[in-house]
């Protein structure tokens, strides 16, 4: 039984990792007043570029790097639309999501001939951390994970420090509260927002990479399964604070892990339909959590509002 619980917690960390990475990135841009609902598409692009690169180079690290570049590119394009062109953030995000979906389908078909199912022969394996991984129970859970879980966990203190302890973080928070006042106080609003978007691009790209490089060895446009939108909910639940976001990501990751875990326990003719049913658990949790925890959430005052200099 103990082993089962350890494996449940361990799976929770794995399923939480992409959610955590994406929501930490989203948390940072939202602190700067930009609501990036295009995160779902950005995650998909990250997964796609990561998969393609890893497939052709047979090098998973290059895959991660490509995920990051893909993520940054698409998020920066979103930034161009909302900052430079001053377009509506929600509409731009919608365009980004559709565009990402289209790009992935198109290039996937062009690159791979119909009928064949390309796959990566080897996934990223867990990296046990010397000594620490020897600790009973905790070692198994925390220190015997893939690089993605480590990056996700480290991203929490990094984001916290960035938001609350740096000069940049202060400018970022001020921009999110009121960009025109921040501008009058000498803050370079566009620069602050672009930097936030680049950071988000990195995190969201890596989040996309987790799907094709550590969980599944194939690519499909449904692979992100609305995890990007979940990340947006996690940011609300986490009250725009990286520590709160960590809690939210764990909750959602746990819901997913639970559905996988229960699925493996049930054997018999009905197991398939039950595990199908259980796979909606994370989405149900999203709705319930938002109903309970999202009620009094008060984010950055100018979140999603357009800003122009004059």
């Amino acid at each position, binding site marked *: 039984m103990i082993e089962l619980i350890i494996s449940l917690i361990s799976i929770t960390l794995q399923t939480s990792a992409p959610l955590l990475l994406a929501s930490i990135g989203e948390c940072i841009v939202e602190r700067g007043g930009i609501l990036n609902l295009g995160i779902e598409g950005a995650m998909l692009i990250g997964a796609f570029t990561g998969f393609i690169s890893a497939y052709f180079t047979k090098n998973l690290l290059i895959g991660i790097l490509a995920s990051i570049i893909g993520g940054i590119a698409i998020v920066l394009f979103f930034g161009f639309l909302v900052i430079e062109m001053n377009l509506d953030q929600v509409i731009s995000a919608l365009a980004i999501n559709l565009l990402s979906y289209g790009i992935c389908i198109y290039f996937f078909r062009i690159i791979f001939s119909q009928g064949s199912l390309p796959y990566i022969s080897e996934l990223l394996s867990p990296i046990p951390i010397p000594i620490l991984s020897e600790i009973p129970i905790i070692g198994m859970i925390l220190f015997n994970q893939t690089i993605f879980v480590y990056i996700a966990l480290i991203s929490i203190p990094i984001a916290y420090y960035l938001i609350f302890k740096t000069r940049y973080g202060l400018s970022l*928070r001020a921009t999110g509260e009121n960009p025109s006042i921040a501008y009058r*106080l*000498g803050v370079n609003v566009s620069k602050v927002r672009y930097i936030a978007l680049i950071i988000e691009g990195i995190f969201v790209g890596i989040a996309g990479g987790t799907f094709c490089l550590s969980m599944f060895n194939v690519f499909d446009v449904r692979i992100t399964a609305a995890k990007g939108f979940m990340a947006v909910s996690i940011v609300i639940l986490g009250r725009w604070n990286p520590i709160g976001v960590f809690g939210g990501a764990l909750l959602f990751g746990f819901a997913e892990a639970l559905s996988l875990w229960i699925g493996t326990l049930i054997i018999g003719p009905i197991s398939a339909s039950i595990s199908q049913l259980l796979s909606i658990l994370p989405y149900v949790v999203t709705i319930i959590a938002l109903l309970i925890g999202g009620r009094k959430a008060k984010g950055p005052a100018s979140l999603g509002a357009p800003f122009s200099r004059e």
Partner: protein
Amino acid sequence: MSSQIPSFFSNDIVLHVEGIRKVYPNGVIANDNVTLSVLKGEIHAILGENGAGKTTLVNIIAGCIKPDAGEIYVNGKKVKIDNPRTAIKLGIGVVHQHFILIPTLTVIENIALSLNNSGFRLNLSKVKERIIQLSNLLNLKIDFNTKVEELPVGLKQKVEILRVLCQNANILILDEPTSVLTPIEVEEFFRILRNLKEKGCSIILITHKVKEALSISDRITIMRKGRIIKTLTPKETNEEELSLLIIGEKQNSESISFTNENNNTKKILLSVNNLNVRGDRGELSVKNVSFSLYSGEILGIAGIAGNGQKELVEALTGLRKPESGTIIIMDENVVNKKPKFLIKKGMAYIPEDRIGRGVVLTMSLAENAILKRFEESPFSNKTIMNKNSIMNYAHELIKKFGIIAPNPNIEVSNLSGGNIQRLIVARELSYNAKILIAENPTAGLDVRATDFTHRIFLDLKSKGVGILLISADLDELLKLSDRILVMYNGKIMKEFNRNEYDIYKIAKLMLGIEVN
């Protein structure tokens, strides 16, 4: 960036603007060939009506607005100020009319934000040291870790000045700084300005108050309709001449006559009994307040902003649920009634926040004019709006209330503050209200618009309307009210009848100082 110093420049000129011109997209010429010099260590007042172009000039110097033409010289060097950062670096510090503070950040964080320190880490303790050093100069003793939203207006202004000083500014531009201060605070504020002047700062004081300009400044520049009219020293001029220069024509000099008829036919329109109201943060903001408003009287409520007036008004107008107590309008308890019911009962409301509560900015003048009556005929027949009658009605209001607008279809966002106020007054008076609640009705308005508003109030009074006038402007209250209640910390401190008015007693009570 810099070029040769023009020969006519003396070393004493710290700021010189030459031929500044700014035309807004809607065709308004806000600045037309504005040329102005500010000397080292002087207090230079720029005096003018609303819409004279003072704030536009400030925004151009601050780098918030790009001028269409003109040059700016700082310390003799030609500079290009294309964003606020450049202005800050050049030592130009601006305290805008609407404070530029982020409410959810602390005082230290707000100031740190504008400082040009390099470094990745946020070093708040270093900023704090500097703040403490400079705060003595302003006699500002507060906890600098307080969030700005928790500070009263007067202190927010001091924080703004402190911010500007921390930026090492030697040219201070203050846009209408005294409009938020009580008479006693103004005196202290002027002391601070003189102090800064002695330390070598040059101060540009933007104001529409003639008396202030005369009492504090070394030189006065008059602006009218975007142009510089004249620069004078206070010694060579007087109040009358300045007023004339500001308006540009002989002002209708008949002053408002105040009549205090004491007829016995007065009846109670509104009576408030033991009212308690909680504020946004759950604190008791209005404490056990009781008073009555009679027909045909103006009842003034004096007090520094943030002493419960806002919550009181919100409770009276049905925007906030009181904790306990009764509000009786013409024999009916209206606690927990909706605004719509109160409007039907004859309550009109002129809110302090004109833009946020008074009008819908993105709708037309005509639409705003019928906002409270759109369900009535002839404006609509329950479902379909009657465009012709709405337009005719709007035209009528424009004429009657002197609203300056090209046509009733103009979006309200294109109107100036004074005209928006006229529109609100016009709408509120259009349904024959019995009770008018007016919250700082003349704040930010120029002489003419203020005079207009006052005349309307006195006219209403003579028609038997009861007016509750909540104002931070003590002069206004003394001039108009039949009685004044002084509010401090949510409580009514004292009631003054017209024959007992004493500005110093009232001002002290406003600050919470008990007087016998």
